[in-house]
């Protein structure tokens, strides 16, 4: 299991487009992804779940990866957060 705290750094926050991209990235891996914010945990492979997270610029999000390819999964998805969803 890999756990990591990430920050939202793009101006527009976690809006619909990055939400969809996260889910698409997570779907590529066998590992599970749990996303936790403000005490709510959702499945990172569920678009409707990710859409319920209101995450603005500056807020932190807790990611948990678990499964055979958790290494690659965490690298790919954490990198996407660190790139500010390619909106910097």
């Amino acid at each position: 299991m890999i756990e990591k705290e990430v920050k939202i750094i793009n101006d527009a926050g976690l809006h619909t487009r990055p939400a969809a991209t996260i889910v698409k990235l997570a779907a590529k891996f066998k590992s599970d992804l749990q996303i936790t914010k403000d005490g709510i945990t959702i499945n990172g492979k569920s678009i409707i779940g990710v859409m319920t997270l209101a995450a603005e610029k500056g807020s932190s999000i807790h990611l948990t990866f678990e499964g055979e390819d958790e290494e690659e999964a965490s690298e790919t998805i954490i990198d996407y957060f660190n790139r500010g969803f390619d909106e910097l």
Partner: protein
Amino acid sequence: MTNTKNTYKGIAAAPGITIARAYQYTKKIEKVQDELISDIDEALLNLDEALNKSKKELLKVFSLAVDKLGENRASIFEAQIMILDDPVLIDTIRRRIKEEKRHPEFIVDDEISKYQALMNEAQEAYMKERSHDIEDIKNRIIRNLKKKKWQSRITNDVIVISDYLTPADTVLFARVNVKGYITNFGGLTSHAAIVARSLNIPAIVGLHEATNKIKNNDLLVLDGFHGTVIINPSEKQINYYREKIEQLRIYDEELAELKNEPAVTTDNKEILLQANLDLTEEIALVVQNGAKGIGLVRTEQLFQEYDVFPEEEVQYNIYREIAEKVYPEKVIIRTLDVGGDKVLPVDVKEPNPFLGWRGIRFLLDNMDLFKTQIRAILRGSEHKNLKMMIPMVCSIKEVRKFKKIVDECKEDLRERGLPFDNDIDLGIMIEVPSAAVMAREYAEEVDFISIGTNDLIQYLLAVDRGNEIVSDLYQEFHPSVVRTIGHIIKEAKNTGKCMVSLCGEMGADTLAVPLLVGLGLDSLSVSASAIPTIKKIIRNLSYEETRALAEKCLTFRTEKEIRNELIQFFDNLQNISVHKIF
């Protein structure tokens, strides 16, 4: 030619006259039955079919949206499609159908509503909107479970009547040949109104009783110039409007011939007639309608298109492209004007956004963003045909800060060895009464000013024109509006160096044109589609006479007197049939 019996009035949202049948578009919230089921396999099969059907529908909407709105704005529909494949959501729904043996409709409604409840609990305003989007997909699945037909599959050549229209609705209607829109709610800035104007489809919004009074298949005359609709018109009424439509057609042909002529009065005073540019795509229309450049590029749209603030390079390419397409004519780019009725890019709730963090105030507080935009505009000015303007100016201090920042940005570019127009003209919007009062001092600070009538009138008269309850108090010909515009022009001209332009919707009001010319404007910037009409009017005016008209209007005390004077002025004009058509 209207009688009160079958005629109703709303807000004129998009011009044009059309005669067609009504099509009632009702968004039904599907009722959900909570019954126990016996055949679980059949229920699961129904669910699969409904999900597939919904996906097909949405894929169609998505590709249309990409077409009409561009890929970025269409992303909302992509997310909706993904929801139909959501492993967590769909597995839960399936499991519950098997376990609880309840109707799929009930389970779908119950499950999706849980997520909506979470979104509605959030503080952020945009989460409520997200919940709305989810509502759309929920209704779509339930409707398909009921095997109901897609109601928006409408026939051609109808006038759509509805409570309100969502982005998905408008995108779909744009595909079929809708002749007009009438909605119960909404103001000039509602989605339906904006789309109708950009597609050139006549529309009326805020006609409260529309869906009650108008029945499916009623014959309607929709007059988008006046915001009136006639239900089941008499033969006499139909003939009257047919005649008008024909006159409009002939008139359009005449206007096309004026394309390459200047907007000059009979006594040789030329008015620089420019276009307002909203979306990058409209630029073809600007050139086609014979505008002398662009008097206002609203950059908010570009930002919305990208969803975030595009970086310098992206913005530079956009500004350069506009500058090159219009060259050698000039282009005025207005820096980002957010706030008020234009949504802020950051989620801030203000009790009174029109008096809040708007225009230049926002820019000065977001210096990186402001400088990025200024550098991009400067780089686009390479061919010396760009000008830069800031919105919502309320103090000289803001103007001086702006000039200083521009100097800093020029220095940056010099260091980077990038070309730009060192003498680029800088200007401000005058749209706040306090700036109007000190017009001369502002004019001394800058190269040009542009009067933004939409906001100026709102602030001067304390009327929100988007608020249906008071929108009739929003009066372009209110004596204090006319006098304020007169004051701004006179004061700015007194400096002997400052160009004065006007870029609000008032400039496109045919009735206002002689008055504005008479008050001494150098330039008018209107929507591209209005340019031929305005040009024709100007070419039939005598500057001498408009000056006398303006002088007289400055003495009146009521809106009615001014309006009557202007109507009478048009009646006396020989060659202008324009006003008589309407």
